[in-house]
């Protein structure tokens, strides 16, 4: 069972972080980062098969590759942005965290612009 492993890792890391927080807060912070990364990498490798199925469906439904890859990129940006912002917020830097989130939103918007343009084209075509 993978979830048991993850929960155990989380509990042990939390214990170590609490032990170290008294003496060395920066080491406790590093432990929290590394735990987050380990769990994240472990989980994201599990996503591979789901991605395969999604790609298969997209190919079956004749969805343009551009749109599908755009959606994947948006999901990836959201994941990474959330991760970085959470770490910054954990360290007590709420301002930096909100800037990271803002950057993620802007980059998602930049990536999504081609889809918006395609939608606009369709609307202009429909409305005479």
């Amino acid at each position, binding site marked *: 069972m993978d979830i048991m*492993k993850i929960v155990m*890792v989380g509990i*042990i*890391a939390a214990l*170590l972080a609490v*032990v*170290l927080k008294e*003496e*060395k807060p*920066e*080491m*406790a912070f*590093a*432990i929290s*980062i*590394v*735990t987050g*990364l*380990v*769990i*994240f*990498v*472990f989980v*994201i*490798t599990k*996503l*591979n098969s789901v*991605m395969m199925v999604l790609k298969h469906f997209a190919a079956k439904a004749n969805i343009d590759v551009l749109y599908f*890859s755009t959606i*994947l*990129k948006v*999901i*990836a940006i959201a*994941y*990474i942005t959330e991760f970085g912002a959470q770490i910054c917020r954990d360290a007590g830097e709420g301002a930096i965290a909100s800037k990271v989130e803002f950057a993620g939103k802007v980059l998602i918007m930049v990536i999504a612009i081609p889809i918006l343009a395609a939608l606009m084209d369709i609307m202009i075509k429909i409305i005479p």
Partner: protein
Amino acid sequence: MDVDLIFKIAAIGIVIAVLNRVLNQSGREEMAMMTTLAGVVVVLMMVISLISNLFNSVRTMFHL
């Protein structure tokens, strides 16, 4: 899943804390500061390699 890294960082933190305490007690504040700095840099190197690993896996997963 490489849990070893978590234990490694915790061990480094405990060792650095003990060294810091001992050096502070014997009146060598500058050496204590140096050990703290060295520990932080070593841990940072580990964390950075793990972060680049994460970014690579995300990049291959989502075909960025």
